[in-house]
């Protein structure tokens, strides 16, 4: 430590300080970049983040790929529509939120707990700017990781999808339009009439037996069906075809939503939905941890919110508290879930027996409110806290 090493150019004569507006509440790019550096160097956190968002789905799909390769008759293809929807709504949604919240809680508290925040404060930089720099920094790490995991899932589900569509236990050509589906149904009337679901009473006044017993078919013995005390005659081929056309028309909508692989639109919507969920988890975690000044307790609270409180409050009809329940961010996010995914939190869609109904507008407002309120609370606490 000697004066002989001083670089006169780097430590020039004391002069007036250039006005760099460091009192303003907006973070600068170098501040954001520094926060990214600080976060991404946390090896354990990054490993957990990547493991949950990329590793778990990749491992699951990898095992399925291997099993299918080893025994294709016993194990179906790894990818496909069902794998995609189950992974997105069942795994990535919940665990993505939790790991995003963990990142947010870390970003919101470690500066304080490690005693470094005060070093930043004594530079004269606005505390609000120091806080806000954490948001783009955290998202710059989180969003690409979530996207990477999702792209892996999409790739496997598309490229390792089944080659034949299984609809109601029947192998059906995929991608048929209504006319093609009806034509196929006419050609496979016996299978369609006996295995596809349909509403007989309202769809057709069938006064025949569609020959669906286990021993039906050529040479088999038909089962006996009575209607109004009259034993119905076995159907003729023409009647069977006529019924198949009716069944095909009834079931087309359902068939249309059954895919070999996830359609592009659903993948895009699901990806954006997962990113939204991660952003919410991160931002709320950041605000909560900054407010509390610690990391562990906020992480526990966020986990409880996601896997205990939200599922309960999303489906339970608590008298007089329905509107309060609609303010739960997880419920609002569930209402933005893309059509085509199985409903999260165990519900079967909005309405009776499903999650509590809520308009899309209200859901968006609730989400925005959570983001703004928690960000504001965190910023306020960091600006007023003794450090």
């Amino acid at each position, binding site marked *: *430590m*000697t*004066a002989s*090493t*001083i*670089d006169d150019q*780097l*430590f*020039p*004569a*004391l002069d007036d*300080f*250039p*006005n*760099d507006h*460091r*009192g303003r509440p907006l973070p*600068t790019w*170098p*501040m954001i*970049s*520094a*926060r990214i*550096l*600080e976060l991404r*160097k*946390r*090896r354990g956190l990054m490993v957990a983040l990547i493991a949950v968002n990329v590793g778990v789905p990749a491992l699951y799909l990898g095992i399925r790929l291997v099993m299918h390769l080893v025994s294709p008759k016993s194990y179906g293809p790894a990818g496909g529509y069902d794998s995609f929807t189950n992974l997105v709504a069942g795994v990535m949604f919940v665990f993505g939120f939790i790991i995003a919240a963990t990142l947010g809680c870390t970003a919101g508290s*470690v500066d304080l707990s*490690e*005693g*470094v925040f*005060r*070093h*930043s*404060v*004594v*530079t*004269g*930089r*606005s505390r609000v700017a*120091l806080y806000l720099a954490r948001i783009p920094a955290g998202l710059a790490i989180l969003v690409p990781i979530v996207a990477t995991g999702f792209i892996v899932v999409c790739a496997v589900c598309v490229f390792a999808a089944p080659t034949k569509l299984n609809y109601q236990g029947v192998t059906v050509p995929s991608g048929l339009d209504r006319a093609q589906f009806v034509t196929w149904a006419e050609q496979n009337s016996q299978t369609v009439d006996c295995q596809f679901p349909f509403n007989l009473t309202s769809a057709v006044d069938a006064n025949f037996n569609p020959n669906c017993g286990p021993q039906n078919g050529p040479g088999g013995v038909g089962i006996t069906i009575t209607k109004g005390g009259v034993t119905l005659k076995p159907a003729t081929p023409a009647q069977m075809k006529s019924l198949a056309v009716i069944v095909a028309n009834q079931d087309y909508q359902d068939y249309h939503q059954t895919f070999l692989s996830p359609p592009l639109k659903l993948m895009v919507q699901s990806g954006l939905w997962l990113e939204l969920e991660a952003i919410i988890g991160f931002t709320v975690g950041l605000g909560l941890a900054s407010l509390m000044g610690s990391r562990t307790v906020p992480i526990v609270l966020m986990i409880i919110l996601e896997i205990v409180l939200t599922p309960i409050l999303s489906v339970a009809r608590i008298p007089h508290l329905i509107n309060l329940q609609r303010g739960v961010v997880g419920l609002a996010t569930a209402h933005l879930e893309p059509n085509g995914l199985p409903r999260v939190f165990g519900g079967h869609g909005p309405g009776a027996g499903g999650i509590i109904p809520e308009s899309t507008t209200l859901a968006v407002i609730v989400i925005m409110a959570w983001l703004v309120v928690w960000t504001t609370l965190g910023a306020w606490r960091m600006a007023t806290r*003794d*450090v």
Partner: protein
Amino acid sequence: MTSVMSVEVPKSGAGGQWAVETHDLTKRFGGRTAVNGVDLLVPRGCAFGYLGPNGAGKTTLIRVLLGLTRADAGTMKLLGHEVPRHRDVALARVGAIVDEPRFHQHLTGRQNLQVLAASREPAAAGRIDAALERVGILHRANDKVAKYSMGMRQRLGVAACLLGDPQLLILDEPMNGLDPAGMADMREMIRSLVAEGRTVVLSSHLLDEIERTCDAVAIVDQGRIIRQGPIDELLAGSNLEVEIDCDSPEMAGSLLSSNTYDARVSVVENGLHVSLPTGSARDIVAEMNRVLVQGGVSVYRLQENRASLESWFLEVTSRLGESE
């Protein structure tokens, strides 16, 4: 406040003569007053010691000055800028270590400085290597801070202070954790910073280190400043002790007692111990020597002992205790 500093407080602006200026600054934690009506004046361009025992309120005052906690009453200025009103402008040219320097353990020394430089002006990032070199840890810059010793962290803390090309450095107990060589290095660096025209405020309870390093001091106890001013002036206000080694102590004692020095003379082994009153000039020592020689006393050694900062500090605080 009791002060020996005989200066007129200017109506300071950004170009005022004080690097730090507080008036009636008070900070309470519940019923306990940690900083009690402090009037502190730190001249620019000096090394200033802020002395006090543990728990005296040194760190709290620094935290208030830097905006880490709010004052309950009083006003303050840093480099002539009112704080907290113009905190951003004032702190732009301040470097500070508060408590102990703490860093992200998982980052290297250089990365920690990058994080801190990002909150300063763009030029700060360009000063990282020079700052590391100046404090002597450039060769360890790429090691994780978790592997640093306490002394190295202190040095890294000083490097962090230098990123802003500061006019004012506030160092809280910077000698903590340093070995003797490290303390000497730190002293030398502080003096070199002062030589460049910077002001260094050094908080410490190590009186000896403050005396060796600083030009002026403030003594704080129980949240109050009890003395402040240049060290030379403060010590000039203390007793002057003279030890005399001679062949006839009894005779020497009677000779000196018969003169009107207002001195307390006591015979000790191998000589005399003379205690002169506060404010005595050094000429008296020469006069005593002449009296003894003219009186036929052989003087082998005559040594004046001005009180050290430590003895003065104890003297002042004991007087304060007696008056209370």
